[in-house]
């Protein structure tokens, strides 16, 4: 996908999610929380599908067209898994299991944010080394 399409897709999914969230919070609907999160599921599904296709292509050709190593792709997979884990845990907590502690739901989020912060920090270090 071109950058413009990816930006548009992300933007639309964020917008839909926020609209559904506002509806749910203001009591406009009493839909299941899993339905409220549908835009985010769709977003994650697309990312995972793209990742899977790139991994398969990498294995078949033995190289990646964008020079992303296999290790990096596995890292992305881990980060995505944590994001999905957080969303699922949060939905389950809000919808069905009101008794489980918030810590459990937030644990994947902390892992996710740590990974993202670490990734950005690594880009600083790489730039520092290149200068």
């Amino acid at each position, binding site marked *: 996908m*071109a*950058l*413009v399409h*990816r*930006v*548009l897709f*992300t*933007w639309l999914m*964020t*917008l839909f999610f*926020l609209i559904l*969230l*506002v509806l749910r*919070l*203001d009591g406009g609907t009493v839909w299941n929380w899993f339905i409220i999160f549908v835009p985010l599921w769709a977003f994650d599904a*697309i*990312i995972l599908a*793209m*990742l899977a296709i790139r991994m398969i292509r990498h294995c078949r050709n033995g190289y990646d067209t964008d020079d992303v190593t296999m290790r990096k792709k596995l890292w*992305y997979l881990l*980060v*995505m898994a944590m994001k999905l884990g957080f969303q699922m845990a949060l939905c389950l907590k809000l919808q069905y299991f009101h008794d489980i*502690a*918030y*810590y459990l739901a*937030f644990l994947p*989020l*902390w892992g996710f*944010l*740590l990974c*993202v*912060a670490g*990734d*950005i*920090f690594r*880009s*600083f270090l790489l730039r520092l080394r290149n200068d």
Partner: protein
Amino acid sequence: MLFSLKEIIQWIGLSAFELWLHVVSLLVFSVLLALKLEDVLSTTWWTVFIPLFASDGLHAYFSSIVFLRLNLEGDLRTAGIRTAWSAVVLVLLFAFKMLLCQKLEDQNNLTFAMIMSPVFILLQVLMIRACQVGN
């Protein structure tokens, strides 16, 4: 993943350092949030939101320094555009967080649609920015 860091910077218009600052503050905030929701922390919501406000403050401080530096180098146009964009993002996000905090503390009785309105405005502005993102 979907975007590289470079593409995100190009679209959102924040530097890598500013993004990092917001991610870290979000991390601290989520820890405080979990503690508050589990009633371990019995402070007001304003205390829980401190990391987010702190990152806003640091972002503003960083942006003003960049503005001064660019100004001294005589690049007034870049400095102006960069600072104006940072100011828009900061003001909208700050308004959202403040309204949310007031709502959680029962200091206003706005609907969540009104509280989210700064975020919706920010999304519209981001759409306009997306038009400028190259191919």
